Every structure is written in C-alpha cells, then in structure tokens.
C-alpha cells in the first residue's frame, strides 16, 4: 500500500480504513476488468444469429423469462461486478438508441477486450491501445458509410422494409411466422410515421398481448385496444360511430382540495343537501349527453348511482382506464382529454367508427376495441401466443422490429447482415493498419481481428467450422471485391447476403462499433479498482 507522510512523518489517511478495502492496481486491475467484461460477453455469444440459443432467466420472485434479446438478458441477470454493469449499460444504450443489435454490441465489446488483453501482455500501454481502437473505429464507421446501399421504399412499396425486419426477427423464437410479424411491424410503423420529417413516434404504437390462441393470430389493429370492459354489464357491447368523451374526472361528488366541512344541523339542510347530491349526478350525466357523447371513457371510478344513470340514459361508459391508454385514445380519436365536466364541449369529443367489446376463451376476459378512428395515427399490435413467456418474447421481438423499421425511415441506408459488414470492415481496417506508424498499428490490427469475431460467433452458432468458413468468406470478399458475402447461417447454399435478403441498418451497425469501442476504451483506462471488502 502506498503511504504518504507529512512533514512530521505521520502517514496521511488517503483512503479511509485502507486495510479493510481490497485494491487492485495496474495491469492486474486491467486484466481483472477485462476478464469480467469477457465473461459477460461470453454469456451472450451463443445467442447471436438465427441459430442462436435462448437464455432462461429466473427473477428473484421466481418468474421465468425466456429470451434471446441481449438487453433483456443482461437487464435481468443480477450482475454484481462493476465492469459487468458497464456491459449491461452498453447493451441498454444500444437498446434505447437503436433498439436492435443489443447482443452484437456486447459480443463486439467482449472480443475487443480479449484482443486488448493480448496487447497489454506484450507491454503496450493501455492508452495507446485505446487510441488505436479509436482510430480504427473511425475507419470502420467510414467504411460502412461507403459500402452502405440506399434503398428506396414508399408508402406503397414496403417490401424492402419488411425484408429488413425479417432479418431482425429471424434470430428470435418467433421466426416461424417472421413474414407476417415483419409485415405487421412495418405496417404499424408506416401508419404512425411522418414521412416528411422522417420521424416516427413509437409511443403511438401500443403492443398488447393476451395469452391464448396461436402466434399466427397476432394482428394489427388500426385503433386502440383497452384491457377493460363496460362499467355496467348491460350496456351495449358495440357502438358504431361513437363520439367519445374522454374524462379525467370521476363520476363522483366533488372533493374540493381545500379542507372544508358542511355542517348539517337542521332537517331542511339535510334535505337540500340530498337534493343537491342527486342533482349533481344528474347534471354530470346530462352534461355528457348534452354535448352528444355516445361513449364515456373515464380515468376514475363511478359511483353506483352514476353508473346506473349512465346506463339509464343509454350512455355506455368505461372506467379505470390508465393514463397512457387515455392519451392514446385521445390521439387516435382526435378528442381532447377533459378534466372537468364544465369544460366538456362537442368539439372536444373523439370520434371512432366502431367500438366493440370482445370476449376471449372460456374465462371472462374481455377487451375493448376502438377502431376506425378519426385519426389513424395510433395503432395497436395485438399479440396472441401459447403462453406468457411466448407473449413476452414476442413483444420484445416486435419492439426490435419496430425500431429497425423506424431507423430505416429515418435513414434508409443499409448494410448487409450475416457478418458481411463486419468482414468487410475488418478487411478495410487491416489494410489501413499498415499506414499508421507507431504502436497504434498493433491495436488497429487487433481491432480488425475483433471485428471478425461477430461472423465467427455466427458461424459457430450455426454449427459451421468457424475458422474455415470465415477465411473462405474473407478470401471471397477480397477476390471478388464484393462486400455482400457473409456467413450462410440458414444453410441456403449461397452466401451472398443480397440474394438472401439479409439486411441491417447502417446506423445500427455504426452505433454498435462506436458504442463498443467507447466502453472498451473506458475499461482500458481504469488502472485502480478499490472496493470495500466483504462485510
């Protein structure tokens, strides 16, 4: 332990309770960190690609998640190691930014770390390694830009988008019906997309799941589904051309925020109060009726009396609708959320062509469909599946596909999947390495090797000979000067990814390389780990 002394020769206290803390310094610290990072990435490595395996995760409460999605696996993994947590963050930020490629980014970072360790052993300073990685990541990103293809799609021709989404879905358990799911994802994104501004608000797409039925029954609904039923069992189950009043005030007597008391001391007061109360309910319902509403959707509950009055006046109502759903309904139907009965006017009502209640299975599950809305800019993807885990996994897969479609609308450049882009980058980086004088050259070469690890993992997971396959593809790319060759995971006989229609988004790939490099740089720069000892 390093000690500092003041002018009287007494040791300074730099770290409180120094003895009880474990401390790793220098190369040991870096190696320990690298080992942790690699361990995390190794867990995800087998999940990569269309033949990747799933992980089963059991939460502290005993719930089971079965998934293939990198971000979800890491999120649920209960990692304690600090560096492990960094990797979790890494995958999460890829998820937030891009939504797809969460496994790839961690595998990439892991192999960069592996390469870095070798360089460190040779005595190269970590900062030089980090700088070399930085340079090469820039080369790789630029190269990706060069090899990226633009492809055109329009509101009517969505085929290219569907193809890209299918690439994403093919690595998930839902690949059985990837075609239909990809179509659903693309159609829903197109429905809410603002093609002028090239922007998509994914909040407008609601993904709702219900256990039962089969995956093929999954459907896209141009409207909203609410997991609620009518407040009174005898209200009509189907309303056409509904005018919807969206309320955030309860059908209950008012509760002023200021404290107050109404004192009753005479019989007259008692009676007037009673009259008022009855009138209050009557007024509320009358108000809704007056503005012409044919359906009331309310965030709060109803009093029994109000409920009956609504029923009586033939005004169907739904209660306890959540805030987010309420907002979506408002967007979809073009209505306004009304916080007070007094403010209810005809033009604040939302409009929907059809509202119906639908029952499922043998239990009394009912859901409310709001369809043919005035503004079709809010859609719902309704997932059915054999069991809860299946639905959850499908939700995640659809989310990934939605993100991919959105990214393509933002930026319609694509690169080829199946490891083709990585191999091409690796060749480019390798070629650039020789031009750099100094130690960085080694780091750049190492980066090229690390890039190879993604196709390598793909080949491994698909049961191919990893080294043989990779070198063959690499040679082919150089010989024919064609960057479309990748790993043929599905045994289709060709490894031209353009023919196989395996695409990935350019920004997704770029982001993967940049994020992975950043995290690796960060890990490499740490040379001192101080952790409190076990208590």
């Amino acid at each position, binding site marked *: 332990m390093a000690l500092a002394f003041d002018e009287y020769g007494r040791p300074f206290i730099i770290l409180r309770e120094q003895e009880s803390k474990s401390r790793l310094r220098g190369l040991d610290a870096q*190696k*320990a960190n690298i080992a*942790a990072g690699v361990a995390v990435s190794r*867990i995800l490595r*087998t999940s990569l690609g269309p033949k990747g*395996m*799933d*992980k*089963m*995760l*059991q*939460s*502290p*409460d*005993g719930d*089971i998640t*079965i998934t293939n999605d990198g971000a979800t696996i890491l999120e649920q*993994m*209960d*990692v*304690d*190691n600090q560096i*492990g947590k960094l990797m979790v963050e890494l995958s999460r930020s890829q998820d937030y930014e891009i939504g797809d490629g969460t496994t790839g980014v961690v595998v990439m970072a892991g192999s960069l770390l592996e390469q870095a360790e070798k360089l460190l052993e040779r005595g190269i300073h970590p900062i030089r390694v980090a700088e070399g990685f930085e340079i090469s990541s820039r080369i790789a990103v630029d190269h990706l830009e060069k090899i990226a293809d633009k492809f055109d799609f329009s509101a009517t021709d969505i085929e290219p988008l569907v193809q890209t989404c299918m690439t994403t879905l093919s690595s998930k*358990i839902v690949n*059985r019906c990837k075609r239909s799911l990809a179509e659903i994802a693309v159609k829903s994104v197109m429905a809410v997309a603002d093609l002028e501004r090239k922007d998509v608000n994914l909040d407008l797409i609601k993904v709702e799941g219900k*256990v*039962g*039925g*089969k995956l093929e029954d999954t459907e896209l609904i141009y409207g909203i589904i609410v997991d609620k039923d009518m407040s009174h*069992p*005898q209200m009509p189950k189907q309303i056409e051309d509904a005018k919807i009043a969206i309320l955030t005030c309860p059908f*209950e*007597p*008012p509760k002023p925020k200021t404290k*107050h*008391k*109404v*004192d*009753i*001391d*005479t*019989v007259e007061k*008692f009676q007037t*109060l009673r009259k008022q*109360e009855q009138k209050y*309910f009557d007024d509320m319902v009358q108000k809704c009726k007056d503005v012409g509403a044919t359906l009331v959707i309310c965030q709060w509950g109803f009093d*029994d009396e109000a409920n*009956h009055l609504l*029923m*009586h006046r033939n005004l169907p109502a739904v209660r306890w609708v959540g805030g987010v759903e309420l907002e979506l309904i408002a967007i979809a139907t073009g209505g306004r959320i009304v916080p007070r009965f007094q403010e209810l006017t005809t033009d604040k009502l939302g409009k929907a062509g059809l509202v119906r209640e639908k029952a499922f*299975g*043998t*239990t009394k*599950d009912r859901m409310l469909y709001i369809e043919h809305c005035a503004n079709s800019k809010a859609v719902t993807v309704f997932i059915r*599946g*054999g*069991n809860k*885990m*299946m639905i959850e996994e499908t939700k995640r897969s659809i989310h990934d596909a939605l993100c991919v479609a959105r990214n393509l609308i933002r930026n319609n450049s694509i690169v080829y999947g199946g490891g083709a882009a990585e191999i091409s980058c690796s060749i480019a980086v390798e070629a650039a390495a020789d031009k750099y004088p100094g130690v960085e050259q080694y780091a750049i070469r190492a980066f090229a090797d690390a890039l190879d690890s993604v196709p390598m993992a793909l080949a491994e997971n698909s*049961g191919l000979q990893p080294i043989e396959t990779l070198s063959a593809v690499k040679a082919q790319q150089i010989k024919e000067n064609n960057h479309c060759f990748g790993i043929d995971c599905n045994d289709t006989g060709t490894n031209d990814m353009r023919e196989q229609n395996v695409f990935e988004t350019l920004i997704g790939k770029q982001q993967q390389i940049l994020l992975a490099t950043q995290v690796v740089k960060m890990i490499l720069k740490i040379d001192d780990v101080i952790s409190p000892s076990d208590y």
Partner: protein
Amino acid sequence: MAVEKLFKDEATEEKGERARMASFVGAMAIADLVKTTLGPKGMDKILQSTGRGHSVTVTNDGATILKSLHIDNPAAKVLIDISKVQDDEVGDGTTSVVVLAGELLREAEKLVGSKIHPMTIISGFRMASECARSALLDRVKDNKDDAEKFRSDLMRIAKTTLSSKILSQDKEHFAKLAVDAVMRLKGSTNLESIQIIKKAGGSLKDSFLDEGFILDKKIGLGQPKRIENANILVANTAMDTDKVKIYGARVRVDSMAKVAQIEGAEKEKMREKVQKIIGHGINCFVNRQLIYNFPEELFADAGILAIEHADFEGIERLGLVTGGEIASTFDNPESVKLGHCKLIEEIMIGEDKLIHFSGVEMGQACTIVLRGASFHVLDEAERSLHDALCVLSQTVNDSRVLLGGGWPEMVMAKAVDELARKTPGKKSHAIEAFSRALIAIPTTIADNAGLDSAELVAQLRAEHHKEDSNAGIDVITGSVGDMSELGISEAFKVKQAVLLSATEAAEMILRVDEIITCAPRRREDRM
C-alpha cells in the same frame, strides 16, 4: 484469469449441456407426474395445501394439479403455464398438453444426445406439427348444418370428456346436462350464465339442470313465499342508511331534539326511497347490498318479496335471465326495465332453502344443481362439468369434430412418419421423434388402463395403415375398436390447441442453453 464474482450472491448460472439437462429433467418430471391421470382409467391425485387448514383437493384435472404445485425448476414452470393457458382457452386437454410436451422433450433429449443441434430438432418439430395439423384437418367431420347430428356429436364429446373424470359413472346423465346447458347459450361462450350450485347430500345422479334460475338466498321474514307473474326489480343500491356522498358533510347538532328530527328525516328519506321502488309496480325486489330491517319491514307491508345481499354475479345473471336492468336510482319508474318471471318460490334442496325463479323470459341462463356425497366429490364434479361445458361451448363455435381414444394421435403419427421418410437431412430424425412422441399418448392411455400397451399400439398402428381407419383404443374391452361405432369423439379445437402449444413449449425449452437464476428475494419471516 477467472472472474471471481460476476453475479450477486446466491445467483446461479448453468450453462450448455447442464442447463439443457436441468430443463429436460424438470419438464419430464412434471409430465410424468400428471401422466397417470390421463385417459378414462387415469387415477386421481390428492393435493394438500400448505395454507391454513391444510385443505384437501382430490382431482384428475391436469391444470388444477399443476396450479397447486410449488415448482422451482424454470422449465417445469413453462409446462405449468401452457396447461393453465389450455384451461383458459379451451378448458380441456390440460393433461394431454403437458404429457405431449414432456414426450417431445424426452425424444429431443435422445436426439441431442446423438449430437443433433437443438435448432435442427426445432425445425423438424415445426414441420412435423404443421403436417400433423393438416392431417387432422383432412379428417375432421363437420356436422354444423345437421342439427340432429350436431347434437349427437356434442353428446359424444361430452361423454368422452367426462369419461376420464369422476362423473364417468353417470356420464350419460351429465353429458345430457352439459349439452342442454350449452345449447341454451345459443353460441355464446359466456359460461358465467350457467350457474353451478353445489349442495352436499344425495348422490351424483340426483344432480339436475334447472331451466330457471336458482338463487342461494332466503326470503325475508313475513314476506310472501310464492309469487306468480312476478315483476322483478334488480337493483344495486344502498338500503341501509343512505349516506350523504358530498365530501366533508357531517351532522352537527346541539340538542337531542334535533337528533331526533334528523333521524326522522333520514327515516323519511328511506321511506320515500322504498315508496319509489314500490312505485315501479313490482312484487319482487332483489338488491345486491344489504337491506336493513326497516326497509325490509316496509317491503313486507307492501307484500313485496325483498331479497338482500345477492352477490354480484348472481345479480348479473338474474338481470340476464329475467331481462331486467340493474337499477341504482329510482326516480323515473317508467323507463326502468323490469324483469319478469312466471313463478318465484322457495324450494328445498337437501336441507337448504333456495329461491327458485321459473318461467323466465330470456332462456339463456340456467342453473345446474350438483348433488354429491362430500364436498370433495362436489368440487371435482364441478371441475369436470366445467371442462365439459368449456369444450362444448367451444365446439358450438367451431363445430369440427374428431374421433377420440388415441385416434387423432395415430392419424397424426402416420402422416408425420410419412413426412419423415420424404425429408432429407438430419431434420427427418426430429420428425420421426415427433411421431414417436405422439404415439406415446395412446400408449399412456393403455398403460393407465392396465392394458398391454405395446401390443395394443402395434395393433393400432397396423390398423391405421389401412386407409380411413377409425380404429382407436377401446379401454373398456381392452382391445382395438372402431371409435365411430363406440361414439368416442373429441373437439378439433382442443386437439389443435394441444398440438400447437405443446410444440411451442417444447421449442422454447429446447432453445435454452443457459439458465441464470437470480438470488431469491428475501422475505421477512412472517411466522
């Protein structure tokens, strides 16, 4: 360099082969657990809860057994989940789905052992399940247009479903009950309108279907016990003291005289309310909430039958059968729809008095009264009947019917076998395995009946080699028999759901190559 600690304390990780083994073993253990309950000669299980009272359930229903188990193995939980979903979706086949998934995994284990990649197995299974489904589709019968035949189909399905349950002794009787009840629903799948009342005493044979509606309540004192041509008001309103609902209101008085006045006003208010209710021209009033003595007395004076504290479902059903609406305000009597029925009377079942509404307007709802020796028998009878009702109501919507007794499995196995012979590549092993897993179901049925399963299944397979065979296992005589003659049928929807969810679950478990278990959340000891 080994990483010292990646996960939190107590979190465990299992990889590769070990993980796969753990999930196979767990899933198969669950399948074996429920295996013995399959088929008409399947045995029951006793479940004892760890909760208060250690209540005991005796059942044969797969979903009920699995629901009550405390399982730690993640793969086993997947199987429990599919059984639950099967119960919710079609109501029956909860055991079969687990057994099939278990058999699929057993076969998959062997394939993995002989170095076939799980993904190859999965794609083989998928092809096989698709092929099996289309084989079933080819052989379904649909008698929707012929009402007479359709009814007999329903009867057969009900009998087949019930024959594996405790009700098998009186399956004829109960099948008729169930079919009658479901036919009344007229295509709706809302089983809530079929009320099942359990009363201990008598024997199962004494159970009956009542066309009317029975409410498990007593009639208030001093009120008429029998009403003809009743006008019923169904209500959900407070009949105790009507609270002032405006927030912050309170009574504040300074003398006893005032208290008396206010009390008087309150009473007056209640009297007014009762008067209004009576003003509807009714002679029966059913309320979901309590009715205090005072209003009850008023009702009795007016000669009105007042029933208090009917539960919510009871009220809803009553509204449904009598065609009245559930009212909470009583200011404009002319627009409230009243319910009607020909006769209300108090009846006795066993020792209990119940209120019986007969001659109701809308015949949709009905009541099944179950009688039996003990509560356990009744509970199990209810579950069995529920299964039958579920299947029937689903069949009414999707009227495709198959034969039973292992027939569908053999048809599927045959088609899948043929597919395996045509498919090149490693997948064909997986497809073959799928057909073996299918055959395991008739094998289990035969085993459970104490028959020579190997012999029977071999005979069955030979029989099915002929075109359009109707052969299945006749458990009663212990031989291969013609299922259409024996009248053993199953609903297509159930079989399809079994096939698809079992394949899906097996697929899910097969795809897993790593299990990460988080440290269990610490709970404070409440003991």
